[in-house]
């Protein structure tokens, strides 16, 4: 266990070095590349959040995009109000909404927005979790319920045009002002802001998985009944990790709305939610680090492939995912772990083999 902890800390340090120093140095602090990377980093947060609930506790949340979307809308609502000044946001006029809905009023405050982007998704996640886990729903049914919630929630957002901007989402946003600093999304400083957010999220994730809390979650994943007989309240543990995962997804959503400068109901689409699952699976769901790396690598691959093969890149990515699922069911993380184990075994084998050879030789000689 301590061994694994030290590997993870080394992994985190390496990851941080690559993200915070390697990437900017390699891409020459150029606005375009760093901006593209800050998008990947915010997606890495939502992927690692899924790894917390799916990899650690075995709860496959197909509705991760819903909580991600809530975060992005929270941020976009604040920036939309800022852009509208004294008046109403423009899309409300289109929908004949006369006064600012009560739901929107508190988003004038930045503090409220930052808290809401974290806590509203967490609360919603918690509410769903309480209903699910109290009823001891597990396995594929968790996936079905969360997926159904996602679809219903997206539909609601699209239908309630007067409050949400409908199909177009929230566009025409102002720039964020964070404690007197106007956030320029093409500046290096913004890249570091997202990078540091990712590192904080990863540290939280690693802390959780290595704590006793994480151990119990893994126990629940392996055998929920047995853990229950030991006297642990399984539903409570599941609810808490579900909450944390949803909150982190909301946080990622806030950053994503900043990077792209709009919030759209497509952030809550089924295809986006499944993409998160794919990133997590490619990286390796058992490790938050691997899941984050998976999100970055898959998006990077998508970017580079689509740059060269304008129309064929979807197909290539699809084939790539199929290969990963067929030959690397535990993702890149699984390959690394297996390789490490094989190396160690080989190291041990080397010490024994000469003895074996010697005995063989002596027998032959004898």
């Amino acid at each position, binding site marked *: 266990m301590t061994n694994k902890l030290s590997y993870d800390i080394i992994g985190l340090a390496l990851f941080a070095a690559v993200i915070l120093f390697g990437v900017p*140095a*390699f*891409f*020459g*602090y*150029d*606005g*375009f*590349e760093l*901006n*593209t990377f800050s*998008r990947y980093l915010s997606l890495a947060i939502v992927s690692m959040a899924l790894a917390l609930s799916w990899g650690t506790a075995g709860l496959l949340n197909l509705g991760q995009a819903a909580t991600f979307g809530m975060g992005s809308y929270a941020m976009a609502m604040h920036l939309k109000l800022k852009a509208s000044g004294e008046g109403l946001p*423009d*899309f409300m*006029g*289109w*929908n*004949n909404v006369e006064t600012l809905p009560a739901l929107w009023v508190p988003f004038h405050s930045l503090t409220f927005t930052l808290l809401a982007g974290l806590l509203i998704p967490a609360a919603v996640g918690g509410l769903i979790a309480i209903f699910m886990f109290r009823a001891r729903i597990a396995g594929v049914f968790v996936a079905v319920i969360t997926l159904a919630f996602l679809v219903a929630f997206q*539909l609601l957002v*699209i*239908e309630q*045009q007067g409050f949400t901007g*409908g*199909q*177009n*989402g929230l*566009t*025409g*946003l102002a720039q964020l002002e964070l404690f007197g600093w106007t956030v320029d999304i*093409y500046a290096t400083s913004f890249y570091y802001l997202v990078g540091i957010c990712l590192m904080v999220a990863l540290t939280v994730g690693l802390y959780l998985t290595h704590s006793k809390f994480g151990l119990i979650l893994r126990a629940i994943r392996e055998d929920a009944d047995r853990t229950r007989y030991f006297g642990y309240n399984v539903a409570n543990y599941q609810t808490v990790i579900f909450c944390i995962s949803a909150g982190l997804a909301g946080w990622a959503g806030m950053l994503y709305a900043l990077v*792209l*400068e*709009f919030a*759209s109901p*497509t*952030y809550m689409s089924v295809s986006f939610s499944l993409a998160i699952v794919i990133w997590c699976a490619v990286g390796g769901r058992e490790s938050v680090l691997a899941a984050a790396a998976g999100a970055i690598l898959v998006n990077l691959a998508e*970017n580079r492939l*689509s*740059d*060269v*093969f*304008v*129309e*064929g890149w*979807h197909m290539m990515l699809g084939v790539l995912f199929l290969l990963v699922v067929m030959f690397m069911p535990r993702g890149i993380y699984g390959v690394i772990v297996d390789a490490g184990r094989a190396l160690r075994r080989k190291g041990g084998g080397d010490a024994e083999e000469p003895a074996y050879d010697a005995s063989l030789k002596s027998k032959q000689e004898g």
Partner: protein
Amino acid sequence: MKRREFLGRAGAVGTMGLAGGLSAPALLSGVGRAYAAGDDIPVGLLFSLTGAVAVVEHTLHDAALMAIEEINAAGGIHGKQLRPIIEDPASDPATYADRARRLMIRDKCVSVFGSYTSSSRQAVLPVAEQRNNLYWYPTLYEGRECSRNVMYGGALANQQQDILIPWLVENYGPRFYMIGNNYVYPKEENNYCKTLLKDLSGEVVHEEYVPMGHSDFSSVLNRIRAEEPDVIFSTLVGDSDVAFARQYHAAELNPEKMPVVSLTRSEIEVKAIGGEAAAGHFSSAPYFMGHESPENEKFVEAYKARYGADAVTHFVNEAAYFQVYQFKNAMEKLDPADVSPPNIRDAAVGMSMKAPQGEILIDENLHTHLWPKVAQWQADGQAKVILQSEERVAPKPYAAYPGQECTGKGLVKT
């Protein structure tokens, strides 16, 4: 399908990366900022070639690409060839935003031509404004936008409805049934229609919005049968429009008594609906494939020769086509050393050209003066123009909002 010279691009990216690694400060200080300083002129094409709206957007892509090829075949602009950089945003707004950054920031395109839906335009808008680039948007849209970085080639509410609504009230009657998809364009068009109807003492018997992609209209048709409106005013788009037209036909309602009058149905939708089911209904647009003008004959002929005899032109890909020529004319007016997106915009303002639909003009508010037409669909899938505006109509993006006007200096409150 590789549409680009892979090796050439990979080489260029490689050198860029190398230069970036070796001399980051040089990049920061703005070396290489000049637009179109190379041997050719990079322009972006940002139309979805895959995904939900690809059926329509691919035809916009085709028309714009054809115009670029024609210009290149005729010797380019100032002796330089246009280099189209093609991206596929796959009908996803986030991908639009990403690819727009590529084209405008990395590839330093002097202009980008793209998109069909409002949501994709609004995904591109922040990048275009922040980088002061120019986005040529060929689609009809809801108006109420006044960006200095978008060239709007499509019709606005006043250009689609001002001649249409009085004619409908006079010839069919004042009772309108409004049906549209649930998003901003139908709502805004209906708002405008209601202000026109008020002056004509018309009435709206029912207003209804269905989700995007909705395809079961049995309850809508029942209500239509019960209400017996004079006009069914439709702002349904894509699959919904096709499904509605077919079900209307199957329900054996009579287009002569209550025709569907659409602001969005073009040759491409009718191709999917089938001429039989579309016959007798109306559309309002500045261009129809059957419009008679020398420019249109040339356009349709070239388009069919390039993309097949059953390819159709329609009011959005006509705009995608003429916008490339507007771009060319503006570029030719500029000294090659002065080429930049804002200068192209300023040169384009006030410029007129003969488009397939008639002689058009770019207003100082960057929208286009167009020739409104109303046409009736025939069984062969073509539209017969039965009403044509006698004069070119100026674009008014804030027509439904007294007290606001989009001018050359941006939005002005009067």
